[in-house]
């Protein structure tokens, strides 16, 4: 019996995974799972997954189901016409089915669909640590790991098959052979340290819509990087004409009206790396998002900091230019023309709208660095 339930569960998870895979672009684009995120799980709405259910007709309303019927008799005649008025209902509406999926599973689906290469870490990647997972059941083990449900099911089976089970006195007593124990497998994982530093332009020209795009993209980048590194550190920097390090919530909600000086964010980022993340031990990922409307005279200072301070120490420096109502700015063009050394570490992506997030993630994470 329990085998069948497990099989059904496994089949259900397969269907769910298939649905997520099918609609991944939509989930990525609309950011539907953001805000539904728990510690390790996210809830994903799957409206397309129909669970079969009975629908009741109207009793005594005639039709073929209510007697002999003749040729031409409608199968289910409609009820009497209403007057088209009525008040809004107070009952809850139909809910979209939500399923929980682990962030790790989500990262795997993302990696498969975007064909993302595994990241090759630098630093202490020769040291591995083992992660323990309870994935199977065995006949031997310590009592502290005894699987009560499985043990009693096994005992019940034995009693039924040996005709010792008494329906009048339904006592199930496990013997030694019935006992089942949880068992673990050890998964070796390289112990590499990684930090993702997100920088966002919050100047007056960045709208809420643009910040939502950044938020969605950062969620997926985080999900992927976390699947590649144990205990990924994340840091957030916002800037207009001045920059500061902030927490995640402030990062997404702040809107300033100052001018745009990208060099201020680079300066804070450089200081942060020097203070907390020695490049010899850390895999450093920088993700910068702006509408590219940098105040002209600041471009040279920004490029200098990028070339001399950030690119030499970062595994990857990703710049996403989110299109503002005034069209994308010119910072991306400056980057294309102004960075030649360490150019393989620099990934540029133009994000015109929500639909471009999917390809942007692929561009950023497709290098496997």
């Amino acid at each position, binding site marked *: 019996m329990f085998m069948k339930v497990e099989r059904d569960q496994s089949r259900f998870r397969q269907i769910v995974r298939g649905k997520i895979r099918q609609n991944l672009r939509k989930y990525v684009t609309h950011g539907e799972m953001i805000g539904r995120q728990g510690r390790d799980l996210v809830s994903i709405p799957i409206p397309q997954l129909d669970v079969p259910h009975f629908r009741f007709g109207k009793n005594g309303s005639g039709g073929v189901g209510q007697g002999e019927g003749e040729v031409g008799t409608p199968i289910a005649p409609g009820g009497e016409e209403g007057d088209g008025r009525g008040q809004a209902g107070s009952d809850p509406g139909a809910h979209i089915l939500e399923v929980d999926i682990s962030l790790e599973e989500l990262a795997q689906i993302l990696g498969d669909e975007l064909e993302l290469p595994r990241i090759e870490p630098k630093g202490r990647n020769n040291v591995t640590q083992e992660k323990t997972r309870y994935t199977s059941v065995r006949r031997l083990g310590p009592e502290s790991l005894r699987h009560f449900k499985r043990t009693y099911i096994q005992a019940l089976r034995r009693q039924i098959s040996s005709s010792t089970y008494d329906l009048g006195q339904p006592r199930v007593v496990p013997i030694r052979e019935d006992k089942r124990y949880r068992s673990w497998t050890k998964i070796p994982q390289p112990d590499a340290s990684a930090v993702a530093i997100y920088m966002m332009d919050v100047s*007056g020209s960045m709208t809420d819509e643009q910040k939502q795009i950044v938020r969605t993209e950062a969620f997926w980048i985080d999900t992927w990087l976390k699947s590649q590194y144990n205990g990924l550190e994340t840091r957030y920097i916002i800037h207009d004409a001045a920059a500061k390090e902030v927490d995640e919530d402030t990062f997404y909600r702040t809107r300033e009206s100052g*001018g745009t000086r990208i060099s201020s964010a680079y300066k804070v980022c450089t200081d942060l790396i020097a203070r907390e993340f020695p490049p010899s031990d850390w895999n450093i990922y920088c993700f910068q998002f702006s509408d590219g409307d940098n105040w002209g005279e600041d471009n040279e200072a920004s490029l200098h900091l990028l070339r001399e301070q950030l690119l030499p120490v970062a595994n990857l420096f990703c710049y996403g230019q989110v299109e503002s*109502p005034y069209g994308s700015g010119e910072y991306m*063009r400056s980057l294309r023309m102004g960075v030649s050394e360490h150019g393989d570490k620099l990934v540029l992506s133009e994000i015109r709208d929500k639909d471009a997030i999917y390809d942007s993630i692929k561009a950023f994470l497709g290098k496997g660095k």
Partner: protein
Amino acid sequence: MTLVEEVRAALAAGAAGQRIEAREASQEFTCDLAAIDSLACAFTSFALATDRLAGATPDELKRLGEKLSARLTYLLEPISPVEIDHGECVVQMRSSPPQRDEDRTSYYELVIRRGGALRLCRYAKAPGDVRQIIPAHVTREVFLRLVGDFSAVVA
């Protein structure tokens, strides 16, 4: 002669491709004309310099921007402050919303700097291209009204 009268006289003698200049007390006006006829003209740059804003604070410049924003209601696109750089003391104002056509986005940009420089230009940006200054087309009446409003808010 007031600044508007000076500019009217200069405009009467102006030709496409010419820079027209006018001065009144502490105000100095310059404009690069791209085209002109009996009814209207087009400019690529419209600037007013004054020493009255030499020691202005960012907040004073912002208030000046808001005054201009309230006056410039006849350009078909409302112009309002978008970014204020407190360090450099610069206020950047733009059309909000900008004009979105199928192949490009165009908008006015008015930059007010400490030291007393106000400069109005019209930009166009096609996807993938650098933004470019394009001629802003206005009737002669609107042109002179612009001069009057710029002059009045900094006076």
